[in-house]
């Protein structure tokens, strides 16, 4: 047998035969073998696929279509009235609402800064830990470092809110020792956003450290040793040896973090409820408030559809990066 055909046969005998150019014994096969019905031929494959399809349809597709449909209706759960079709009115109202645009732009700035901050800090920490394999207590240090990432955002929000409390909080107390007065960082428009940002960076830097360590592990030791023999400067090693190998995993980490940061809701809900005023109200929180404070399902669905398209944009970017990797490997 042709070696290529042997490889392909494991995928599909029919396809493999087609690949190596052999003819399909159509007539003889039909006479010699008993004819299988559709269920016998494809039953196993459908049996594997159908449960997943049902799950997808029930829990993804129907709610998604329902949500898209509701975005064309005026439907406030408490109004006691049936949904009223309003066409594109919800979209028009949202897209001309300055508060919505404020929320959207605030979210993008937050995403940009938190991803940048966590990536730089995480990358640095990952690089330092990578070069300290024999450091005593390295495992313990790494475990402690990863702890913030393992906590739920709700817990982080609750304890930071307590620690930042201007009357009882420890951070506020320490801050007061330095500045001479206790500051309420979460109550001022000028400080609330940076405070939320720093907490988010604190929480997600470990994730980027983990990604960096995984990325650095993919760099071939031989190339690193060769660079060492050639006495290359560390910047050159980073640029010429490490980054070419590590960049795909790092980019994946950045993209995952971007998508996740875009959805930030629970942390900020606990910390500031989107305040003071609207200065930390991100898109996720606005959606939550429309859906669960105002119970305005029509408008909340409209925001969700817009958020969905933004998420699709990020996902497309993510798939594009993966394809880049495939093309490079090929």
């Amino acid at each position, binding site marked *: 047998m042709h070696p290529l055909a042997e490889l392909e046969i494991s995928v599909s005998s029919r396809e493999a035969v087609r690949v190596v150019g052999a003819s399909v014994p159509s007539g003889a096969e039909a006479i010699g073998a008993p004819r299988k019905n559709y269920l016998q031929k494809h039953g196993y494959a459908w049996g594997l696929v159908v449960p997943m399809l049902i799950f997808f349809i029930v829990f993804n597709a129907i709610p998604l279509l329902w949500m898209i449909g509701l975005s064309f209706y005026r439907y406030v759960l*408490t109004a006691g009235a049936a949904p009223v079709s309003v066409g594109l009115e919800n979209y028009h109202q949202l897209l001309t609402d300055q508060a919505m645009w404020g929320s959207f732009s605030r979210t993008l700035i937050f995403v940009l800064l938190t991803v940048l901050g966590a990536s730089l800090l995480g990358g640095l920490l990952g690089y330092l830990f990578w070069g300290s394999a024999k450091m005593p207590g390295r495992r313990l240090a790494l475990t402690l470092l990863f702890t913030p990432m393992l906590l739920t955002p709700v817990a982080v929000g609750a304890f930071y809110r307590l620690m930042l409390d201007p009357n009882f909080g420890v951070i506020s107390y320490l801050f007061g020792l330095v500045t001479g007065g206790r500051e309420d960082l979460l109550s001022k428009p000028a400080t609330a956003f940076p405070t939320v940002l720093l907490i988010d960076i604190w929480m997600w830097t470990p994730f980027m450290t983990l990604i960096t360590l995984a990325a650095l592990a993919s760099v071939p030791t031989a190339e690193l040793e060769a660079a060492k023999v050639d006495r290359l400067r560390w910047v050159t090693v980073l640029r010429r040896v490490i980054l070419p190998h590590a960049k795909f995993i790092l980019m994946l980490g950045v993209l995952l973090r971007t998508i996740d940061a875009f959805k930030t809701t629970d942390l900020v809900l606990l910390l500031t409820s989107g305040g003071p005023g609207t200065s930390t109200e991100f898109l996720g929180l606005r959606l939550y408030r429309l859906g669960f404070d105002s119970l305005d399902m029509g408008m909340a669905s409209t925001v969700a559809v817009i958020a969905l398209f933004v998420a699709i944009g990020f996902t497309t970017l993510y798939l594009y990066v993966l394809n880049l990797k495939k093309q490079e490997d090929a």
Partner: protein
Amino acid sequence: MTVGDISRRTALKWGAVGLSLPFVGSLAACTGSKTKTSTGAVEKVSLKGQSLALTILGVAGWPPSQMSVDFGNKAFKAHAKSALGYDVGFKSSDAPFGQLFQKAATSLATKSQQFNLIISDSQWLGAFARAKWIIPLNKIIAANKNLQVEWYSNVVINGYMRYPDGSSNIYGLPQEGDVLVLYVRKDMLENPKEQAAFKSKYHKDLPQTFEDFDKITWADYHTIMEFFTRPAEGLYGISLQYSKEYDYFTCYYYPFLFSRGHQIWDSQKKNVQGILNTDQNAAALEEFVALKKYCPPGADHVGIAELADLFTHGKVFSCIQWAAMGPSMIPSTLKGKVMVVPPPAFKEGRTYTLGGQPWVVNAFNDKNNMQAVVDFLTWWYLPETQLAYAKAGGNPCDKVTLESTGFDDLQPWFRAYKYMLQDGKTLDFWHDPNYAKMLSDQQEAFTAFSTGQVKDARKALDYIAYKQQQTLYDAGETKTAPSGTLPSLS
């Protein structure tokens, strides 16, 4: 590519049709569906020999809510067994104020009897009733003499029971009456050193009695708050609620309007623009926010629980707080050191915001559960039950209990509670189905002004008025569309 003998394109087409059918069908059904709910006429059902479990949905961390479940499991359980011949147990389910309505609404929207009896906020009556999630209680009351209670004031009837306002439809019965009262540190007021220092600085005496505080206006109280504001000692004159959460800011700002006869909307025509956003109301908003200078740092995050923390930890001399929080506000460490009095009056009068919660009955209860709920409510309003409730720290609303001898001395806050529950002293706002949306919009704008995100109080009120007018117009409550453009909050 093909899947079996079906092309991918065909599979996708049929898949899309298949997916859209239930969606289109359900949305159409939802649009045209008519909810079958109880009309409020409850047939008498014999529950003898049966065993039932009722769930009460109440407010998390709120003493009166938990009391009702405790009363159910202890006293009513025994009463049901001995007098009515059936077993009943009570389970509690709860959520914080800000999330309780969501929890109730999302369950009731599915026609569930997950919560048989709900401790609602008074403002939700409209939303629950309009959606037919709760039953009108007129027929039940007419059929039960024990439910024909003489209430203490019209504040109780208008606040907790009626919807729509001014109609005779009864949708709620008061579970817990509640009003805003002033908790003050009596030990500080009685301290001779403090008295002398105050006298020498302001040439007048510190108030000492309930009657003294009854006469005090905000203008007088400024001096007292100023006197006790000593940041170096970690002590402040007052604490108030400025939080963005739920209705916290709103309930504390409204007395600055109600007491002066200012309006927040036209409750008949359901219009807001031109009524809420006036220069007078803007000045009142500025006045309320200016009081933060006598509050501890972090005033913008202070809600009900934070207020209790500040007061019980000795960070403030006084605070305006709900009477229902009495058990939490006066722990054993502060027994005898706290006086509860009416909050300061305004030059024009004293009208504060109503708190408290009515019972509302799930319209989707089956016959047995509905009967048990009616039995429980009938027992709840027996004078002896209400007195026991008062002794446990709950705030009853019936005239017999409130006017009984010795009521004022049962709890430290009862005298002030009874005083503020009189007609004219306290007022409720909005029982409109759009309450949640209107509240959410105004809490956002109020706190935007309070924290300095918006510099102009009038602009914040213009924003609220526009948004609320839009909400009411969209809901078909008013024929007047919002005029002008929506101001920005940034």
